[in-house]
């Protein structure tokens, strides 16, 4: 018996231990780091009308020696990233074809952003995410953005200072804009998939300010005020997989309020004699959505609780008095309500329920929801009554009570 032999002799045991080294290292899937081209960002554009080149994918590959090596004085700096593009009928084909140009095998797990060109977004983005979900090499936690007015390839070509890897810069801007200014949400690929499956989605946009060709040069990176910049701008409303409308300003922020994604922002209130002259820092916000069915019609109530403090004022007000604060709270409530109202109104016009309000009806009245499910976005949602209740409180006035302004 073979097994008995293994157990009998000591020398066999040692031999076995050595033999096992061969197997436990998992040689089949071993890969060396230097054999990879690490992708920091991926862009997808419309390729052509032919099915042969339906998509054009662009990858932004990190140049590791520049990113990690610091500044080498005297020598000519090469760019911190390089982009390659290819077309194909499927994304996977286009990505594999890039191997013709790239120095080594593409490495996907470190993707930080995915950009989609506006032209493609208008035709439909539904099929873009299957490969992301199916391929174990992708991680689905990177945010998705739509490039406003340009192709994704252009956006990935723009060099950025401070953060030499443009994808990292975009990701950073998106995060901080979401956390500090709160106008645009950050939608991860997995969330986009979920939303697209349910119906409509809202995806943040990015804009190129300046000339694309200038942005493509490292000189752009060396200027103090860059002539070509990337800016987070616009909220794309995607309906049935297609880009329908760009939102900006009030309605965009309204979407963020309703989706419970608001973290911090600033709201401007009016002084008695000056418009928009008091800044309120919103520090905490939440939204609670409830749905009811009354007389065979859904009634949705969106309640928003916001908390903030006075952070700037351009007029003399008696901020030490409770009544003044109450007055400001009332104004703040109206301001927030206006934004939310603007968002709801625009989206009802667009027939796009990006908030997933339908699901709340389902939770409340599942049988009713089954009846209206198919015509919800098309017919019911635009006609539905949406009540907005805002509860806003101003907690404090910063380091001073009254302003020096008289």
């Amino acid at each position, binding site marked *: 018996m073979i*097994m008995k032999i293994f157990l009998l002799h000591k020398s066999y045991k040692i031999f076995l231990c050595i033999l096992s080294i061969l197997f436990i290292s998992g040689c089949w899937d071993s890969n060396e780091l230097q054999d990879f081209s690490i992708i920091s960002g991926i862009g997808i554009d419309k390729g052509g009308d032919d099915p042969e080149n339906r998509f054009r994918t662009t990858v932004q590959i990190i140049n590791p020696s520049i990113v990690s090596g610091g500044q080498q004085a005297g020598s000519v700096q090469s760019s911190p990233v390089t982009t390659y593009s290819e077309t194909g009928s499927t994304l996977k084909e286009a990505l594999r074809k890039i191997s013709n140009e790239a120095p080594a095998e593409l490495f996907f797990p470190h993707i930080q952003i995915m950009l989609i060109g506006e032209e493609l977004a208008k035709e439909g983005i539904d099929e873009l995410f299957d490969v992301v979900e199916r391929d174990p090499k992708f991680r689905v936690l990177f945010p998705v953005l739509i490039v406003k007015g340009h192709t994704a390839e252009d956006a990935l070509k723009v060099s950025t200072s401070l953060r030499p890897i443009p994808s990292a810069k975009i990701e950073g801007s998106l995060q901080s804009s979401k956390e500090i200014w709160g106008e645009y949400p950050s939608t991860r690929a997995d969330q986009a998939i979920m939303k697209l499956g349910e119906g409509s989605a809202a995806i943040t946009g990015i804009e190129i300010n300046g000339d694309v060709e200038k942005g493509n040069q490292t000189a752009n990176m060396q200027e103090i005020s860059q002539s070509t910049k990337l800016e987070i701008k616009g909220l794309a409303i995607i309906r049935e997989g297609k880009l329908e409308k760009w939102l900006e300003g009030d309605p965009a922020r309204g979407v963020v309020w309703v989706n419970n994604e608001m973290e911090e922002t600033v709201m401007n209130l009016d002084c008695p004699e000056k418009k928009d002259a008091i800044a309120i820092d919103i520090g905490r916000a939440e939204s609670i959505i409830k749905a009811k069915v009354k007389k065979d019609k859904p009634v949705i109530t969106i309640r928003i609780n916001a908390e903030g403090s006075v952070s700037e004022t351009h007029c003399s007000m008696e901020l030490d008095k409770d009544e003044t604060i109450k007055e400001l709270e009332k104004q703040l409530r109206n301001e927030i309500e206006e934004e939310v109202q603007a968002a709801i109104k625009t989206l009802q016009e667009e027939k796009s329920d990006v908030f997933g309000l339908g699901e709340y009806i389902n*939770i*409340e009245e599942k049988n009713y929801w089954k009846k209206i499910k198919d015509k919800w976005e098309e017919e019911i949602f635009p006609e539905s009554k949406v009540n907005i209740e805002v509860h806003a409180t101003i907690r404090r006035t910063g380091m001073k009570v009254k302003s020096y302004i008289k």
Partner: protein
Amino acid sequence: MEKAKVNGIQLFAMMFMFNLGTAVVVSYGIEAKKDAWLAILLGMSLGVGLFFIYYRLFCHYPKLPITGYARKILGNYLGWIVGLFYVLYFLQIATRQVRDFSELLVSSTMTETPLLAIQISFVLVICYVLYQGVEVLARTAEVFIIILFLLGMAGNFFILVSGDFELHNLRPFLENGWKPILSTAVLESVHFPFGEMVVFTMLLPYLNKSGSVKKVWMSALLLSGLTLSWTASLNIAVLGVDVMERTTFPTLATIGKVNLLEFIQRLDAIVVFTMLITVFFKGSLFMYGAVIGIVDLFKLKNHQQILLPVGGIIIFSAMTIATNFSGYMAEGKEGLRPLVFPIILYFPALLLIVSMIRNHLKQKMN
């Protein structure tokens, strides 16, 4: 039958990990959509019912495995055939464990490694531990259940803290009524994994205190049922029903969403290890059941000598069971169904009824 003794805690550890094996990683109970957790709990309650059949049989014949008392009850020939069915069933399910495990590794982490390479190493490890005997397997279980517990705690903690847990994904309750829940409970979750515990009828004779069977079995059944129900809810709450239905290994997808402080992320290893540990025990126990069944039926001297041949059969059938993953899953769902109920319910119930009639007649004769 080897001379071995297993204590209550060890048996509990084996049963608990056995029940989690694969079920904790695959999309389990999802036919019931948002109410998967309820379907699993119902399946568990039916599992309690099955236990009482096995338990009554065990009380009649505390020293024999099911292949042994089948012959006592139904007579040598008929009982032998029933025993053979059990052996084949154990082999089949052991095969599925090996295939499940290798499919997970190949489709998630080791995409270029051939299935066969993983299966051979996995089956060899199982053969080794079974060569050492059931006592060693039981002690290994005692060690690994602690590791499994720590992995489970860590995984759950990170998922809950990372903020992807959306309770409203689980609502509304009874979205599609009771029908899908009942059909999932009866057709799927009662067998997988609670009915599969029928393999422990081969191991109960080794228990050192036969009085503790009820306590051990029930606590393992309830705890593992609750764990599975919780895991299914967790997956649905994080992924949503729609994604979970489409995902081959949802728990892996769930843990993939953990991203704490841009630092604690890519925790797939937790799930892969959970799968590895639990499937190892499930596979080992089924293979052990098959092997000692063969020893018992064919009157062999010991089980060591047939381990490698049986391992070879398992590898061969794990490779040839289906040519692709979809076919494999379909086979598991529909192909097994007609075979399952005779094994977990009809045969044991028949054995119980016949033995009760026999005892009754015997008493009358006296």
